[in-house]
């Protein structure tokens, strides 16, 4: 059964229809890349999967629950299962890395502060960020901020992670670091939706692609199909032969 099931999703802003009929599914443990031209609304779809945007019509099913009409209060349980990695990390800039990572634990778990500290040290160790534990976000590089954002998103063990351009603007070293982390989480069975323009990374981490264009999913293809030149429009998009 699909852990994410988007059916006929439509969304407009100021009367302009961005999405008219977006339909796709993501199976448990799968990593799906949402690709498409700039400004096509990939992030809007991603934000809708966690209720940060409300759809005009259509249904969004997450782990068997229809979430598109849920209130902010009811979305809390969904947001414990689905984590969102923001493009620029979106770390709380008045808090240290430690407090950023402690935030979801303090809110959603009964852990004592000593246990929280232990969990954070383990997480930062795994993400290669232990030296940043007491730093403020402003003292970190862009790549480190994104990795801390990913570490924070993982703190309460979500089933699904939504990545919004996780490698945008990063140097090759940090891009590879992010790729490694995404692949490591994938091995643990975490389901992912990956919005990106960084096609080499997408080809490394995704199992399947959905091409968004003209307000709908225009084409779908697995990574194997793309690599075997059977990717149709997606292959053309990756090759830069067509826009979104």
């Amino acid at each position, binding site marked *: 059964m699909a852990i994410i099931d988007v059916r006929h999703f439509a969304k407009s802003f100021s009367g302009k229809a961005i999405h008219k009929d977006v339909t796709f599914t993501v199976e448990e443990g799968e990593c799906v890349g949402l690709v498409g031209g700039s400004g096509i609304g990939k992030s809007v779809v991603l934000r809708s999967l966690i209720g940060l945007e409300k759809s005009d019509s259509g249904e969004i099913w997450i782990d068997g629950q229809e979430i598109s009409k849920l209130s902010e209060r009811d*979305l*809390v349980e969904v947001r414990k299962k689905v984590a969102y990695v923001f*493009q620029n990390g979106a*770390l709380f800039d008045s808090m240290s890395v430690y407090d950023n990572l402690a*935030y979801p634990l303090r*809110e959603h778990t009964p852990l004592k502060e000593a246990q929280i500290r232990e969990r954070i040290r383990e997480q930062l160790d795994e993400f290669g960020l232990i030296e940043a534990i007491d730093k403020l976000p402003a003292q970190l590089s862009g790549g480190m901020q994104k990795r801390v954002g990913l570490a924070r998103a993982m703190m309460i063990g979500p089933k699904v992670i939504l990545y919004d351009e996780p490698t945008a603007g990063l140097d090759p070293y940090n891009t590879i670091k992010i790729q490694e982390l995404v692949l490591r989480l994938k091995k643990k069975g975490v389901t992912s939706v990956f919005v990106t323009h960084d096609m080499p990374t997408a080809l490394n981490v995704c199992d399947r692609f959905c091409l968004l264009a003209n307000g709908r999913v225009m084409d779908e293809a697995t990574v194997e199909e793309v690599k075997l030149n059977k990717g149709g429009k997606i292959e053309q998009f990756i090759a830069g032969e067509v826009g979104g």
Partner: protein
Amino acid sequence: MKSSRTEFLKTFGGFAILTKQVAVEMMRPPLYPRLVIDQMYQVGLQSLPLVFVTAGATGMVMALQFGLGLEKFGGKLYIPKIVSLSIVREMAPVFCSLMLAARVGAGITSEIGSMTVTQQIDAIRALGTSPIKKIVIPRVLACVIAIPLLTTAANFVGILGGLLVGKNDLGLDPVFYVQKVLQTVTIADFLSGFAKTPVFAFVIAINACYFGLTAKGGTQGVGNATTKSVVTSSITILVGDYFLSKFFWIFEQWL
């Protein structure tokens, strides 16, 4: 014209919705008293110097102007009465609120606005928490508690400012000044000024939070939101002061 009317209605509706959300969320756990205390430090203690300077200068200028004007008619002895009543009933609540709309309101809007445009508010939501609870309610409560207390302090400082000028420039006896103030200012006078301040405080906090949460378009958007917050709060305080004064005036007549 139509777009500005739409914008006004949208903003007004936004305030109403935010106010409702604050009222509803305040009734539901969890509450964050620690965040309220942190904000009270920011809003209250850190604003004390500004409030003291504003109130002190207002009291001194009023004593000086009335002193110069009334001296010609031999009315210098009325200065303690006039200064204390004006300060307690009107000047301290309104001037303090205006200064705090600028200092506290601008601070809140720019802080929340920056969080909005850098997706930190979205991150609060994505992490399964409520920006209303974590951001708005602590600031609203801090303002509603701290601003009336600051105004009370401003009453004393303003009257003291008048005393300083009365003694040094107008030759009034300090003991006479204090006696006259105590004879003149009643609890009703104090309350008619004091009771306005929670309303002003709520206006400052809700405006500031609303404009911060709806900031768009990067740093320029944050700047615009901050300007709108201060202007809207200031106008609301000045216009609202008339209606609140009239309300308390009718209330006092009725009593």
